[in-house]
């Protein structure tokens, strides 16, 4: 298949590799294609490419490690699916955590396991209302355990779903994706710090200080916030608390994202959405209770400008109180419990790991004392029908 004439040194403009395609041969049987290999010292070329690639990867890895990154599991839908399938595989009576990022950064599974004897199943997703995941649990008759629902008002009552596709992914996960997830968890993710969406080429380039296009404000994109274990136990990246520049950047991100945008819904639309989300929650809680699931909402702590934003746009009476009234479910609001207040949230929304460990123990104590413990003062009514 290699053309007899060497191309290197051939007269300019002469293509010795030129060949016909099917486009040049109408209405005839197409012959075996030509697939010439350009005349080059391919052995040394491959060796050189591999050596240079190794150097580039080492340099890239070194750069991100010096930035403070370290290897960790990617919070993919595949990782979520592994946890979700624990319910199908005999853990239907487990405690499940759903919600947004606060519930997975602020609740530490090892602490919970130490106190409870069983490790909860972590099914929360950042930037995402828990309702689609609750609806999935409510449709699963195998799930009869307890569910702790984290409420971040700006996500829960707006119905925002940044990562809302995990249920669909889990149902449709192909054998190839199933295997790929496990290969990545064994061969790539435990070893490479740069293997993180935040450090991908396009993300890095997009976050450079490009001039702003008139009439188009680019809101600051949330940066890497934490790390995940194989079972999705998650914790805040030290850099958020320890690196003043990164810490300040995160506060700027929230501040920027609290500014009005032309894409924001009108107040009337927002109010309508809030009511829809509360009704949706009432329906799903009723279904969960119908198969014996104990439901508990928890309003996780926030502080500073974030708390001010939440109070201004999602006032407690109109949202949290209405949610509990509509669902008839029990709830823990951090402002009602002294032991759930006073934690350090470096960027106003999530706790550092030591604080999260302390908080988990305190929250577990409240839950056991008032709701789920053998001598609970306010035990939830099983198989009750939610108030509509």
């Amino acid at each position, binding site marked *: 298949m290699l053309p007899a004439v060497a191309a290197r040194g051939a007269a300019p403009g002469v293509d010795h590799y030129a060949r016909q395609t099917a486009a040049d041969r109408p209405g005839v049987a197409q012959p075996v294609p030509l697939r010439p290999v*350009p005349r080059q*010292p391919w052995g040394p070329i491959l060796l050189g490419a591999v050596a240079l690639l190794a150097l580039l990867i080492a340099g890239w890895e070194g750069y991100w490690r010096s930035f403070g990154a370290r290897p960790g599991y990617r919070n993919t839908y595949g990782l979520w699916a592994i946890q979700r399938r624990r319910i199908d595989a005999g853990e239907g009576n487990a405690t499940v955590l759903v919600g947004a990022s606060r519930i997975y950064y602020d609740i530490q599974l090892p602490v919970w396991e130490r106190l409870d004897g069983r490790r909860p199943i972590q099914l929360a997703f950042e930037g995402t209302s828990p309702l689609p995941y609750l609806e999935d649990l409510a449709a699963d008759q195998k799930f009869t355990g307890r569910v702790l629902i984290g409420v971040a008002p700006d996500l829960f009552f707006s119905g925002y779903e940044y990562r809302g596709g995990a249920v669909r992914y889990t149902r449709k996960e192909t054998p190839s994706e199933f295997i790929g997830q496990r290969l990545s968890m064994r061969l790539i993710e435990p070893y490479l710090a740069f293997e993180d969406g935040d450090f991908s080429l396009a993300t890095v380039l997009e976050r450079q200080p490009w001039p702003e296009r008139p009439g188009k404000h680019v809101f600051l994109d949330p940066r890497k916030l934490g790390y995940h274990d194989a079972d999705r136990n998650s914790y805040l990246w030290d850099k958020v608390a320890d690196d003043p520049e990164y810490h300040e950047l995160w506060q700027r991100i929230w501040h920027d994202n609290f500014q009005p945008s032309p894409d924001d819904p009108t107040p009337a639309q927002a109010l309508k959405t809030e009511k829809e989300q509360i009704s949706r929650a009432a329906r799903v809680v009723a279904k969960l209770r119908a198969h014996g699931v104990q439901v508990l909402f928890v309003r996780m702590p926030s502080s500073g400008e974030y708390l001010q934003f939440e109070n201004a746009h999602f006032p407690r009476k109109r949202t949290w109180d209405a949610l509990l009234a509509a669902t008839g479910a029990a709830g823990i609001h951090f402002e009602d419990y002294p032991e759930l207040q006073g934690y350090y949230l470096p960027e106003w929304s999530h706790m550092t790991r030591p604080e999260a460990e302390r908080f988990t123990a305190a929250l577990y104590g409240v839950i056991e004392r008032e709701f789920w413990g053998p001598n609970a003062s306010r035990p939830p009514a099983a198989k009750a029908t939610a108030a509509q």
Partner: protein
Amino acid sequence: MVFNSLTFIVFFACVLGLHSLPLPWTAKKINLLIASYLFYAAWNPPFVILLWISTVVDWYAAQGLVKARRQSSRHAWMLLSVVANLGMLGYFKYGQFLLDNFTALMSAIGIAYHPAHYDIVLPVGISFYTFATMSYTLDVYLRRAAPARNLLDYALFVTFFPHLVAGPIMRPTELVPQFAQPRRASADQLRFGLALMTLGLFNKIVLADSFLSQVAERVYDSDKIPGALDAWAATLAFSGQIFCDFAGYSTTAIGAALCLGFAMPDNFRFPYAAVGFSDFWRRWHITLSSWLRDYLYIPLGGNRHGARRTYLALMCTMLLGGLWHGANWTFVAWGGLHGLYLAVERLLRARFVNYRPGPVVFVLLGLLTYTLVNITWVFFRAKTFSKAWIVLRGMAGQNAAARPILATYSLLSVAAIVGALLVTHWLMRSRTLESLVARAPAAAVSMVWALMAFAIIIAQGSGSAFIYFQF
């Protein structure tokens, strides 16, 4: 499985390893066949049955064709193949579409018809392998080719994993003879094959997925009204995305086959340097356009029965070619526009037989071709006609309510990548990739290879499917 996945890397390493073992040639072919079924089953195992049906029907149809004494029997065997393949394609790909259109038609004449909704899952690559198997029976029917000598070679032709789900659409005469004798890649074929796979994956993961797809999505998949800049940027981005995605797949497939010692045909020849639409279709998705020409346009009469019949055949071919891409009228509109362009070009060529453009006009005609191709991409990318009109009005600067959608970075990335793509296509329009590589210093080839591989790794692709898998 998709080429841009960790699963494929491990799979391909195993296949290469098995193929290099000192086993009998038949054992190696069986290995390749099993590997190809695994490759396909990695999406949805039950759909392997469809592959078997397609394989068995066309195998027996071709055997029947050879043994048939009468022309009517030959017709019957050929029709069996066509009906079985198109029936399968019709059910899985167009069933819901036909039902929806029937319901709409009934509604238009005042009959309220509410059929049950069928959640039909489209088997990946069904349009590709049904066309490949049909070309086998049709070539035997047209006496262009002899049937394969054994079922193993034929089954491997249908199923060979590099071309199985998104082409290049192979003809039996291109691939079956390669299974006759033992084949193993030479060291240089293996290395060049790996280089081609790197180039293909760079196109897909880095250019198409990391940079261009999001720009198109932000305009085409949002409810915002685009102005001229945003509408053009998104459409140009999609023109780059679909080329990088599909040509990337073809290049990876060709490279994978070469690593195993097999040759697959070119599917793209720098299409955005085309001057005119007949030139475009000689450069874009060559294996599909030549398939449609050989098995549809020519049997419909081609250019042998006068001008009117030629235009009719042309339009039918392009409209059906559009529908092949997807069960949506927007794809038919895309094909129809290309048919119209080809018809107008044919008229102009007949009117100006002796016209030879100078270099400047030649380039301008090329840019006009690219611009008109972009108009067709609007219908290809938009999910509905209303969205297509919104984008087209934006491209014409007629959207009064438009607000900026894309940020500076998006605009710059489209300008840089699509600009570079166009320049590359023009510089390479009469050349081959191999000639460019052969003339380059070895150190430069090594460096470019490493940089592309590095970009693939740090782009951290999400393993998203190739656009053409849905067709």
